[in-house]
């Protein structure tokens, strides 16, 4: 029997790695990967607690919703990144410092 605390520790580690990537990276795609890591940590928690809800499956169903939402956000974020690259020729968020005209 795997205890819930083990799942929580793994997901906390993944969350903190994602946090580190978001704060320290100079590349928008790597920041996006950090956000995905944090989302995955949250989904892992949902799934781990969802084991104790056999009738309604609330944890697993909201994990599915979170995965679909992550797909939608990634599509939009990558479209934005491509637009930023087209305009500034870089995807370092620190260099993007002008508004549209």
């Amino acid at each position, binding site marked *: *029997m*795997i*205890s*819930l*605390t*083990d*799942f*929580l*520790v*793994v997901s*906390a*580690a993944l969350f*903190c*790695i994602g*946090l*580190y*990537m978001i*704060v*320290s990276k*100079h*590349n928008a*795609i*790597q920041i996006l*990967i*950090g956000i995905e*890591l944090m989302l995955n940590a949250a*989904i892992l928690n949902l*799934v*781990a607690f*969802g*084991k*104790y*809800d*056999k*009738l*309604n*499956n609330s944890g*697993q*169903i909201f*994990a*599915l919703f979170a*995965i*679909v*939402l*992550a*797909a*939608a*956000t*990634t*599509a*939009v974020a*990558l*479209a934005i*990144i*491509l*637009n930023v*690259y087209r305009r500034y020729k*870089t*995807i*370092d968020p620190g260099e993007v410092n002008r508004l549209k005209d």
Partner: protein
Amino acid sequence: MTLLQILFYVMGFIAVASAIYVAATKNLVRCVFMFFITLFALAGLYVLALADFVAITQIVIYVGGILVLILFAFMLSGKENLNIIQQQGSRLMNLSTLPALVLAVLFFVLMVNMMGKIDADNLDWIKSSIQNGNVITPDANVTDNIGINLMTRYLLPFEAISILLMVALVGAAHLSRKERTA
């Protein structure tokens, strides 16, 4: 220590170690491909939490969809990125990531501390659900139940998310088209 626990620790180690590699590497391509490994290990963890349908969805959507999108955007955004990243391999870079490292480590210590206080295995609702037999067992037929619940109890969030997905896709298509005279 049972086989299940050994599998859990192996999967958890692979997930965390490959995530650390993703965060630490200077090579963007290697970063994306190691993220594959993290996602597969997470799918394995979902299976160990008795959520096989979520694990399959994770592989289909994350590995099949999101990672291909990330690779695609990475290929389209030119090779200057690679040069930029490799230039940053100096000692100055290490100094500038120190605050982020401190933040992440402190946050991790805080969360582990809180987990010790919460003691998740002895929460009231978990105890009562164990008493009522409301726990998913390895031989349970979960996927059928998910399908029925999705179409009855969770129909409203399901429809809301389908609308949101459509809006997001239309928005992405609009954002990524070539603009004429704006």
